[in-house]
């Protein structure tokens, strides 16, 4: 088949354009990385691009010397792991019955999940309920109120539905209880789906800052995102921020960049490996949405 001239021009344009799109997506990340290890003088003059100038690790050294930051980092890890476990457990318990053959009450269950997606109460009443439950300023305020996402439940349901119904039936005939079927048969078989949805929850929890801002007053409970907000966006006011950034000087600018990197690093490191699960998740989710 002959390739027309227009087609060639188009393809050239297309490849170049998409290359530029990639540059736009990557540049900010690479810039922050370079800036975090660059000497302040170059940074102030705006000379740093994506290649570090006057390589130094002093910003990271300073970060390391602040125990508060380590604490926040630990908190974020804890919230992410504990939150994901709770979320997955609840979501599996919701998705499993929804994925089975129709039975009385299933419609009601699905309404419970879906209506919440369409209609949200808003932050004020949720805040009041959380406070009433004495969760304010405790780890539960981070772990529980946002534990379930209806979208993720539906996604998990779609994954469960791909497992042949006969499997479950024969297990039931062998006298397997439903709980066992869920944990011993469905979950292992739907592993790619479980991993995908788990990652959705984990990334969301790692990146979330709003509940922490809303509910946590105790500095020993806050996650890394809050510290990041304090020192980079608000250039602020909290003791830690003053120590860390305003303290003496010059490297404060690099400290900001270094904190961004530290807060994003774990995700960037696992991204290449988990990326394919996300793509899969999106596809399954969108097929039967």
């Amino acid at each position, binding site marked *: 088949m002959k390739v027309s001239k227009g087609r060639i021009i*188009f393809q050239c344009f*297309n490849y170049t354009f*998409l290359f530029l799109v*990639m540059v736009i997506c*990557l540049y*900010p*990340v690479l810039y*922050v990385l370079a800036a975090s290890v660059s000497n302040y003088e170059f940074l*102030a003059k705006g000379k740093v691009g994506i290649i570090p100038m006057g390589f130094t690790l002093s910003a990271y050294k300073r970060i390391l010397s602040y125990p508060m930051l380590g604490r926040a980092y630990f908190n974020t890890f804890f919230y992410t792991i504990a939150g994901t476990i709770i979320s997955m457990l*609840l979501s599996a*318990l919701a998705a*499993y*019955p929804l994925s089975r053959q129709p*039975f*009385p*009450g*299933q419609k009601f269950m699905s309404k*419970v*999940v*879906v209506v*919440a*997606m*369409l*209609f*949200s*109460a*808003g*932050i*004020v*009443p*949720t805040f*009041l*309920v959380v406070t009433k*439950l004495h969760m304010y300023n405790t780890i539960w305020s981070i772990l*529980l*109120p946002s534990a*379930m996402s209806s979208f993720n439940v539906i996604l998990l349901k779609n994954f469960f539905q791909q497992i042949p119904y006969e499997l479950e039936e024969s297990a039931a005939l062998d006298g397997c209880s*439903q*709980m066992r079927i*869920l944990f011993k048969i469905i979950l292992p078989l739907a592993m790619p789906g479980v991993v995908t949805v788990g990652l959705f929850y984990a*990334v969301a929890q790692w*990146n979330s*800052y709003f509940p922490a801002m*809303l509910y946590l007053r105790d500095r020993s409970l806050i996650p890394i995102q809050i510290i990041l*907000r304090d020192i980079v*966006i608000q250039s602020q006011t909290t003791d830690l921020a003053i120590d860390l950034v305003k303290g003496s000087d010059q490297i404060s600018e690099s400290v*900001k*960049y270094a904190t*961004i990197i530290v*807060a*994003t690093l774990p*995700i*960037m490191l696992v991204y*290449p490996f988990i*990326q394919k699960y*996300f*793509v899969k998740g999106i*596809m399954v989710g*969108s*097929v039967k949405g």
Partner: protein
Amino acid sequence: MRNMKKAGKKMKLTNKAEKKKKLKIRRYMPYYIMFIPVLAYYVIFRYIPLIYAFIISIIKYQPGKGIFNSKFVGFDYYLQFIKSKFFLRLIRNTLAINFLQLTIGFVAPIILALLLNEIGRKRYKKLVQTVTYLPNFISSVVVVSMIVTFLSPSTGLINNIREHLGMERINFLTEPRYFWIIYTLMTIWQTAGYTAIIYLAALTGINSELYEAAKIDGAGRWKQLWYVTLPGISSTIVLMFLMKVGRVLDVGYDTIILMYNPSIYSTADVIGTYVYRRGILNSEYSFGSAVGFFQSIIGLLLVILANKLSKKYTETSLW
């Protein structure tokens, strides 16, 4: 005698039915038990707040007093909001930002997916996909941090470029007129790659015979795009649109809270941020609940309307 026999038969029948019912319930019991924690979650964190929102919004709620001792005020808080001098501004900002999201923000990932679909080299396609998807994993705090540093009037990259070109430095984040576009571009940067994957999934689902048939009929690339590709992903497009409409009033207020400051409230303040400031920061719980509830109702109505229209004209709908 006969009657008694009949009655007995009836009883037997109901007994049987009951037994069947019992058996059924017993069979499905595990499902119901499993659902208890889920139901508890949804009731406590989603549905009670919903009822709570409404109740609090029609009384003058003071936390010390409790609901029953607070004064009933009806729809006073709703009226107070509608009559306030910020009402129009908040509605305008919320709608304007959404309009940009539903136009530029909506088309961008579709174009990205269409262009990606034209790439023959699988590896390059995969690379672009992976890289454009990356920003979706970066937290909004980090994204806003980057925006703040890039747009910084003294050291920011954009202003350095402007200076090079002989233009003056601008403090973008304190100038009201730039906010809408900054926010829109930021969300496109964050989400276009992710959304494009959804469209790509739909694109790969199009039957290749359709293209062959179109070619035989003499359709060029543009015609194929128009008559095969776009119709092929139209239901996905409609669904995505409906889902976006569902969040219309719920614009990413948590991101805007990070970005805005009093000097750009005139364009950056949306309903969500206003609820946060009045309801949470000022502890005006009743007023905040009223505004939040108002927003939810309008949002729900919009989805229902959009869904109806879509059902009528495109035969695609959310439910």
